[in-house]
């Protein structure tokens, strides 16, 4: 259990954030802007007569077309084109039309509370990769569908994204992570071979860190690196628990995207006797055969099977 000191410190930090939040909100009363309209009182169920049809909408909103997107596929029985057109997402439009275009009488997801707007999308997008959206990390942080997607004015070629590429979109909040694609050792993201969604499902998953494959970090990594899946005869316990104990999958300036340079990474745990805790420094590098524990593959020059060994003599991962 945490100590009292830890609890007090956490509570103080949380209280500070809460205070800042209250002050911030007090200083910025809900001066209307897109995205800050207060949620409406639950409207009574709409009748067929409340819908005006898409042709009516297009008389004024011709530029809000969605043709050419999946929403326009009449053959998909759930699509807007196959159901109520624009009013599938925007709700019945009669009051809006009869009100001379009164914007308060039409539902606009862009101007709704983020979570309520997402609920509009989730009316249809409640399966496959979206099944676990509600309550997911992004949903809890007031990031919604319209934070990343634009039905009418997407910039990306796919997925109706609001940025021209997936890494660019994710970078708008996670710049400290996406910067790592420029590290000396990196996944082929900047080469366009992988994207953030190659590993993550931002809509919610049963794994940690919104990883889309498996239910542990290791299962996510070995979904591509199956040669490291094992299970092995000899296991290196940290490997079996999480690849990220040693690797930073977003990129690193260390070989093989390690979180620290070898042999110093290995020496964080291997404080034993003889060669593991030897001081590997410049003098040895130039004068001793123990140099082979510093240059090149360093520790892995011998302990090549560091992810696990299937050899009976593989205890030290030499075979």
């Amino acid at each position, binding site marked *: 259990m945490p100590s009292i000191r830890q609890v007090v410190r*956490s509570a103080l930090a949380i209280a500070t954030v*809460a205070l800042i*939040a209250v002050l*911030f909100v007090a200083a910025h009363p809900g001066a209307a*802007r897109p*995205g*800050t309209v*207060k949620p409406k009182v639950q409207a009574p169920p709409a009748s067929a007569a409340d819908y005006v049809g*898409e*042709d009516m909408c297009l008389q004024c909103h*011709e530029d809000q*077309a969605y*043709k*050419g997107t999946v929403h*326009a596929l*009449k053959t998909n029985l759930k699509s807007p084109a196959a159901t109520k057109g624009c009013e599938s997402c925007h709700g019945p439009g009669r009051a809006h039309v009869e009100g001379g275009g009164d914007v308060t009488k039409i539902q606009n997801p862009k101007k709704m509370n983020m979570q309520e707007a997402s*609920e509009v999308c989730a009316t249809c997008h409640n399966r496959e990769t979206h099944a676990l959206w*509600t*309550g997911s990390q992004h949903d809890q*942080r007031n990031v919604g569908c319209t934070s990343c997607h634009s039905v009418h004015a997407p910039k990306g070629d796919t997925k109706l994204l609001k940025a021209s590429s997936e890494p660019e979109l994710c970078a708008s909040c996670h*710049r400290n992570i996406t910067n790592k694609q*420029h*590290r000396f050792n990196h996944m082929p993201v900047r*080469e366009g*071979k992988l994207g953030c969604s190659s590993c993550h499902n931002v809509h919610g998953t*049963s794994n940690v860190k919104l990883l889309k494959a*498996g*239910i542990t970090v290791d*299962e996510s990594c070995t979904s591509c690196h199956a040669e490291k899946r094992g*299970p092995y005869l000899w*296991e290196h*316990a940290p490997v*079996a628990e*999480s690849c990220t104990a040693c690797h930073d999958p977003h990129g690193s300036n260390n070989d093989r995207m390690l979180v620290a*340079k070898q042999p*110093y990474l290995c*020496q964080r*745990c291997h*404080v034993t*006797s003889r060669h593991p*805790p030897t*001081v590997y420094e*410049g*003098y040895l590098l*130039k004068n001793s*055969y123990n*140099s082979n524990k*510093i*240059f*090149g*593959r*360093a520790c892995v*020059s*011998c302990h090549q099977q560091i992810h696990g060994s*299937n*050899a*009976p*003599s593989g205890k030290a991962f*030499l*075979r």
Partner: protein
Amino acid sequence: MRNRIIVTTAALLLASAISAMAQQQQNPPATTAPAALAPTFGTIDFGFRGLDTTGDAARLQRYSDLRNGAHSHVEFGKNTDTSLINFTADNVGYRDQRYDFGFTNGKATASFLWDSTPLNYAYYARTPWVDRSTGSSAILTLDPAARLAVQSKQPGIVGVPANAGQLNTASIFRGMAGQFDLQQRRDTAALGFGLNATRDLLVNFTFSTAKKSGAMPWGASFAFSNANEVPLPLDNRTNDFAAGVEWTNPKGMVRLGWTGSWFDNNIHELVWDNPVRATDMTPYDPSAYLNGNGPAQGRMSMPPTNHMNVVSATALYKMPRRTTVNGTLSFASMKQNDSLIPWTINPAIANAGVYAKFPGLAHLERSTAEAEVRGINALLNLTSRPNSRFGLNVRYRFNDHDNRTPIFDAVEYVRFDAVPEETGGETEPFDFKRNTFDVNGTFHLTSATALRLGYTFDTVDRLERAAEQLTDNTFRASLDTMQSQYVTVRAIYEHTARDVSNLDVGKITGGGGQPALRFYDEAARDRDKATLLFVVNPVAQVDLTASVAAGKDKYNDSDQYFGLLDNDNTSYNLGVNVTPMEQVAFGVNYGHDKFTSLQRSRNANPSPDASWNDPNRDWTLNNDEKVNNFDVYLDLLRAIKKTDVSLSYSFSDSDNAFVHGGPRIAALTAAGQFQALPNVTNQWQQLRADVKYFFDTHVGIGVGYWYEKLDISDFATIDLPGQPGTPRIDYLGEISTGYGNRPYKGNTGFVRLLYTF
């Protein structure tokens, strides 16, 4: 190639079948879709590419193929009210070629992907080992006469340099090392199919197959003084299948799914020649793992063929008052039952005489691995937003990693194929069982501002680790607001206190560790993390972004003295992006990251040697890395008549310091046996410029220019004296391939014709 054709044909047949099906089905009554976009569109971008490189050309093309020749990029799309089709092809015929096809008609979807991704290590690699692989054995041989010359210690002959004096003479293997491209490639074909069988029922299926071929650098050692790096041939394939059926309606969803993954490695073992022995040392030398007087050959196992199956159920149910419950339950099985290689390939050990002293080496306890892990995993997630002011999320996760691999007795084993020993012990199948309970309350202070307070209790019960139980208590607060149209703020602070129960120090000392050592992945610690993101939009066309992220790990077990003690990171980022008009966008982003860590160790011989408990043998290492990132871009899309211009420049550098300290360092320094390591630095920059000029709406020309440069300095990369950039493969204690971290500069030019439709 045959597989490629079969899969491509299958994809086309599938697409045509779906298309036919689409034509037969009745269109539902619907309204008219909004204004038309181009129903058919595409680009053919074809021309020539020229590459000029100095330095490490493989590193420049780490995951790509930019060789001189044809450049190609094709896009095609056709969107109608009843179907969407898209197709792209990139760099046709090259090692990084990619083809992507997608089709949907609302009723059904189909997709196909072919992707080749190279991993280029080095085009300058050299090795004296010759590949004579056969069957499932990778066999790498060395010249027998050279090995015999080294073994017999012929005057003037150096095999693997053992001291600084021998570096003045080239190894006998240097001259016979042939140059080759050290590279591998992953070729992936993936096929997906989905069918909306009814309005509420979806069936989907995916299949992918990935083949790895080529070679990779691989450690293959015989002794402390004889660690080598060889090009390991690769030949393996992973086949993945997934199938699922989903039923949804406005109230909920249920999905049943299965995934299966088979990894087949066609190379079961690696056998390679010892550079310093042509014959096995007979009888074996008990010090051979140190002095290299060992076997003529080594043998090691390769990643085993294995498979995994998972069945899962996922459900979602919407309840009154905006309350949703969703969850998953899955059962997993991972198995591998590869045949085990013998204890050793060394006949000086694998004989009756040695078996009399080491009876355990006379046979293997079992002939195959019989390794199996079963998993049970569950997630239950309740979200309730009963009113506009408050939301509650409660989440429970359960993971059971149940390792059922029988213990394998290896108390007697063979080290380096050189020495039989009695210290091997038994295998330690690693288990864990994790329970995570997470609750978050979200207070909507206004319609666009959410304050979230949360708590997570996470406990992991573990088998075969020193810490038998880890408990994390995490408190968090986050604030997310878009209250003003000008400002977005996202902030989160999280504190995690990790406690360890039932610490078995015997697991640490049993592995030879100091009793005051704690492993950083399981040590008691406090972790603080905070992120603050400000986005300011003074006008709609401009966004200014500032963010700060910080993390701090403080290892706080009062009995911990050795291991990782502190690990901190901070990141600052500033950016501005401007879109003054639809045709123009530009921006600049700058980031600065800092990583620091402190670890402590003791340079000692095993107890009862006095050094084991001697604090004068202690040393520390401060690792301090600073990284800068910089990006700037400009896009002009028809802002200039008939012309598209795209410019971008990216920069990243790193300065990584390794500062040793402590009494052991002082003693080594006094003895003239310590030299501080130089910082490891790198500086990478990339400029990309692309200009397209269109003569009319369809036809144009394009020119492109890419400049990329890496400067790097790394003490772990060894070059020949006075020849920077030329690897030395025969450095102290190792014959390597020469693969390392070296600078490069590349200029790539493109000239091409464009046709758009």
